[in-house]
């Protein structure tokens, strides 16, 4: 059975100390875990990545600090992850389905189950999980492979996915 792994926002914005949404020291351990994970599934799973690219005057993000601005180094995928994605989806919103090729490309794979890893738990992971469930996909989130800058929001994201959206948490 074909299974797709969606690596979300594995970019400098969150993982590099100079990034607009750098998540601190926790990213160092997360990077290592993700690297091992991608290495272990390379060749057996189809790996898609999402990458945020925003414009400076995007009204949607007026409540958060600007990050992943087009043309900045924030949008670059970390070097250690570059060998893995089969397809890169550029996003402007938390849901990776909003104005992107994700639905069309997922359908081509024939997958029924999608694994979500990356950042952040309460934003990209949560809102994409909801859209996947709306479309009838089984969704699995590996808790050690997702993170958020705020531990309270991370826990909230995990709880909503697990208890409301019927996402399998491993």
């Amino acid at each position, binding site marked *: 059975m074909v299974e797709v792994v969606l690596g979300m926002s594995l970019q400098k914005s969150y993982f590099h100390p100079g990034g607009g949404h750098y998540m601190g020291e926790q990213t160092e351990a997360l990077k290592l875990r993700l690297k091992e994970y991608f290495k272990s599934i390379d060749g057996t799973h189809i790996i898609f990545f999402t990458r945020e*690219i*925003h*414009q400076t005057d*995007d009204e949607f993000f007026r409540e958060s600090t600007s990050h992943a601005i*087009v043309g900045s180094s924030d949008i670059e995928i970390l070097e250690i992850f570059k060998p893995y994605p*089969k*397809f*890169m*989806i*550029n*996003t*402007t*919103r938390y849901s990776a389905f*909003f*104005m*992107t*090729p994700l*639905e*069309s*490309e997922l*359908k*081509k794979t024939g997958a029924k189950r999608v694994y979500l890893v990356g950042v952040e738990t309460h934003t990209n992971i949560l809102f994409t999980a909801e859209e996947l469930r709306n479309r009838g996909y089984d969704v699995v989130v590996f808790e050690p492979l997702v993170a958020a800058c705020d531990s309270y929001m991370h826990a909230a994201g995990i709880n909503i996915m697990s208890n409301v959206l019927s996402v399998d948490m491993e």
Partner: protein
Amino acid sequence: MRDEPLFIKYLNGQVTELDVMDIVYNSSKDSLSKQIALNKKNENNDLSIFKIDFKKAVIDLIDSGINQRFINYVNSYMKPSLEEFLESSDSGRAGEDRYIVIKAEDAPWVEAVICYNLCIYIKAFGIHNLKICPVCQKFFSHKGKYAKYCSDSCKLVGQANG
């Protein structure tokens, strides 16, 4: 009056994915792209979701102009799929000849070709002539900046309906 570009014909159902593959096969300058196009014709090519999404992207473009979500959308298809080459003659920019090469067989290159066609259209003509006819809901671009309807018959219907 000029012919409508490929992406409009695709949106309006005048050409299909198979026609796009034929165009790529017949117009490619490299043998690899030709072979990939030929192979693709024998596969299951259901691009119905792409067509719906692409239509939304073009409507967004008409409504909101060029924005980052539109650029992200077309780049997601074009970057992994196509490489553009430019051949220029001695006579300057007027003699430029653009052509594309398919980068990888498993990339979404049919979608990318349609997005590329849209981008080339925007580069040449801008977006002000790109419209949707309020009567027949078809896309059109050949009537000029101030046109509201795609044809005289739609204009008559539209004006009669007030």
